[in-house]
């Protein structure tokens, strides 16, 4: 454990955020989820848009409801450690965008409840070589009513299937956008996230008017 960032000093005398002696106002955090199977480019996506190099947090979670695949073990408590990558993009002094990359397997679904609370929307990253990796995430976001967009990561510009074929395979609603993007490029990731935000905006306006 490194404590370099904690100079040995008394807490009470610690200086407060800004020069004028008043505490700095904390920015409002908003978040977008990037979900998908292993190796589909979640971390690359997060890294492309983040202003800091992506950080990894380990979450150790105990769950009593993980026996979805194996009902016989449903009553056992299981502890899983998962790693989540995340990045930050400062929008302005009072608004920060967090981008969380999360594993897309259904056995991690128990922690998505926590993660999507307050989330603007999600980008489901798809590798056309392994489309079914993203099914659990699509299922989950559909059921949770979280606005989401399916982003086909075009490694080196290659895609095994057309976007229409991906849409057909996923059987998603007409209004869920399916787009191709390249996780390595900031502009491409930004545009994909802007589509997610469009969906989020639609939903927020719908909710406000009802």
């Amino acid at each position, binding site marked *: 454990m490194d404590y370099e960032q904690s100079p040995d000093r008394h*807490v009470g005398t610690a200086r407060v955020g800004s020069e004028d002696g008043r505490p700095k106002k904390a920015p409002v955090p*908003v978040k977008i989820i990037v979900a998908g199977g292993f190796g589909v480019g979640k971390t690359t996506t997060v890294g492309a848009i983040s202003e800091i190099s992506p950080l990894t*947090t380990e979450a150790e979670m*105990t769950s009593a409801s993980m026996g979805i695949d194996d009902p016989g073990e449903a009553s056992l408590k299981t502890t899983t450690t998962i790693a*989540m990558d995340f990045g930050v993009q400062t929008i302005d002094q009072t*608004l920060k965008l967090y981008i969380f990359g999360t594993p897309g397997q259904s056995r991690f679904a128990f922690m998505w409840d926590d993660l999507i609370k307050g989330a603007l929307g999600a980008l489901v990253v798809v590798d056309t070589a392994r489309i079914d990796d993203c099914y659990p995430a699509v299922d989950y976001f559909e059921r949770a009513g979280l606005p989401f967009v399916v982003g086909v990561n075009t490694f080196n510009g290659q895609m095994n299937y057309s976007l229409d074929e991906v849409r057909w395979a996923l059987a998603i609603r007409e209004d869920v956008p399916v787009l191709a993007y390249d996780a390595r490029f900031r502009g491409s990731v930004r545009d994909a996230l802007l589509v997610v935000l469009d969906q989020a905006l639609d939903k927020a306006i719908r909710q406000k008017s009802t």
Partner: protein
Amino acid sequence: MTYPDPDDPASPARPSVRPFLQPSSSGGYRPAHRVEETVTDQSVSLRPFVITSGRTDGADPGIGMETQVTLNPMAAPVRLSPEMRAIVGMCSEPVSVAEISARLHLHLGVARILVGDLRAAGQLDVHVLDNDTPDPETIMRVIRGLRAIT
């Protein structure tokens, strides 16, 4: 934190009952000098919730990964554990719980519990949002902000 956990079976600090029966042993009593060599690994092998005195839940559900944390300007000087001091040391600028967890190599659950404890102790302000449903105005600002980046 820097001490080996005597209950951890993986800990090399656990004294062997009969060290001279080990194949590498040259026989007889040896001082436990190996403890010194391995002690730096403890933060990796130490079970994370030892730091929270074994509590694994009880964290405020309002404290999310992105929740912002700042120093409480009114905080009185108190003695804190090294982990808590490290957290407080990060919070002179607003920082998220996820960043605290990642930068201090604390499990997220541990970070959430310690942040909650530090708020209860009056050391930190935790800015839990009253309304976590995103409103259109905020989303518009994010869209404008993202469009502006190149």
